């Protein structure tokens, strides 16, 4: 797999809620080889502060080399990014990492929590090339409805069944996305999950009980994204050494890693 470093123009900037943005960026080289679950490393400042690139999942790939990222403002880097305007150039590195393996039989459950929903739209679209919409179910959770409504519609417009949960009950069910999983039938199926670590741990547990394969996208601190710095270590299931999220992941089989 080949990675590219590109100066990429921001074509469009959408503010989806108070702190969630969606950027459409022109980067043909990176777009071409991208797979769902892979990510890009973005330089968020021209100066030396903040210094490190920030990792973001590939949210969608459109024709003409356009790539979207969906991000939430949580700190200095994402704040700087949010302030960037269409026409400006972003230094992008990608596509990076190992994405979802979606050539699985049976049902497909896409489970996203918070900004973890980002890679799932790309995943759903790729899946639809080989499976019927009815074989896919999407479960999304967030603290409040404004974080979900646009994305929920994006999935629904694909003809996929979408269930939503919000902690404040402002959209969909009141509660956690993991609670929505309880009513799903056990059996042959694969869960593709992305979200905060505590949620993923619960998702992994439910999947085990239901007999589903479970793939999770893990977030770690990353400096390089290229398997060079060894910063993104994740403890192996056997507690004997580490795998690395930027190369062996960010998507792991839930059985590969230790759940702490």
């Amino acid at each position, binding site marked *: 797999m*080949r*990675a*590219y*470093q590109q100066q990429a123009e921001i074509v469009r900037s959408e503010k989806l809620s108070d702190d969630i943005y969606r950027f459409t960026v022109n980067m043909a080289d990176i777009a071409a080889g991208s797979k769902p679950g892979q990510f890009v490393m973005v*330089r968020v400042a021209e100066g*030396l*502060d*903040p*210094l*490190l*690139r920030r990792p973001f999942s590939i949210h969608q790939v459109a024709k003409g080399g356009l790539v979207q990222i969906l991000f939430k403002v949580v700190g200095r880097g994402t704040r700087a990014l949010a302030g960037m305007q269409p026409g400006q150039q972003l*230094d992008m*590195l990608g596509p990076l990492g190992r994405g979802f393996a979606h050539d699985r039989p049976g049902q497909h459950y896409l489970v996203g929590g918070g900004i973890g929903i980002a890679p799932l739209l790309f995943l759903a679209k790729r899946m639809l090339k080989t499976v019927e919409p009815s074989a896919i179910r999407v479960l999304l959770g967030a603290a409040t409805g404004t974080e979900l409504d646009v994305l929920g519609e994006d999935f629904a417009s694909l003809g996929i069944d979408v269930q939503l949960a919000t902690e404040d009950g402002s959209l969909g069910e009141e509660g956690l996305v993991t609670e929505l999983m309880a009513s799903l039938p056990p059996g042959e199926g694969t869960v593709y999950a992305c979200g905060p670590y505590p949620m993923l741990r619960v998702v992994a547990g439910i999947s085990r009980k239901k007999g589903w394969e479970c793939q999770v996208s893990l977030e*770690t*601190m*990353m*400096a*390089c994204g*290229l*398997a*060079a*710095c*060894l*910063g*993104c*270590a*994740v*403890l192996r299931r056997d507690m*004997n*050494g*580490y795998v690395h999220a930027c190369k062996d992941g960010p998507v792991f089989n839930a059985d590969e890693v230790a759940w702490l």
Partner: protein
Amino acid sequence: MAIEQPDMRVSIGPLHLQNPVMTASGTFGYGEEYGSLVNLHRLGAIIVKGISLRPRQGNPPPRIAETAAGMLNAIGLENVGLERFLAEKIPFLEGIETPLIVNILGDSVDDYQELAARLDGEEKVAALEVNISCPNVRHGGVAFGTDPEMAHAVTKAVRDHFSRPVIVKLSPNVTDITVIARAVEEAGADALSLINTVLGMAIDIEAEKPKLANVFGGLSGPAIKPIGLRMVWQAAESVSLPIIGIGGITTPEDAIEYLLAGACAIQVGTANFINPGATEEIIRGIGKHLTARGIDSVQELTGRARRR
């Protein structure tokens, strides 16, 4: 006038490089990782992640944290170990003409000695870079690099068991870098690399605990450039060994500062993460600087600011 390309070749003692720009150990993997982003053939040398006799798992995460114009790392010297390095990593590097320098680390003088002896048999290894920032397990965990006698012992052990150039990489976490530099020179090193990372830490005020699982980590990046430059200058004043400058080099201008301070070559570390194209940009930028000033050879820059 000077329409010819300036001469970018440098000699680090007996080691001859096509240009003075290398990759710093631990920031460029085993070379392969940057294969699709950097023209590896263009580099002065490739220095790989530090290798120990046996594989090391490294520290638990979080292993990195960002700081103002810098980063902390506590990778814990994770590496594949000598055997796998020879079996899995060297073959790729043999396909690259660029000289390979292997960074080595150990828990004892014996470890270093064995690494040197084993790597002496590997033709692709143009030189060793001895990382003496590691704790000496036989001596209460004090780093080899902070005690002149231990630094001397490690250097001599490697020197006696490796027939090609031996570069010793110094730790900046000392009161007087010149004392260590002289000890290493006396022990027979061919060159010095400096600096390694500066010991630091960061605290997560929400979790109320250190950001790194290991508590302390090594500070690198632009933040430490003034410290690296100062130590290169001091070392250049006190030893006659060639010096390889490291610490925060991100642009051609940074590299030129180090050369002017007394380095004959430089290494690019953290900048590889921020801008994988950094090494090639730095090589081009140094060339342009020479051309613009009508300087024939990059070697003329070395120590020029010290002679004024």
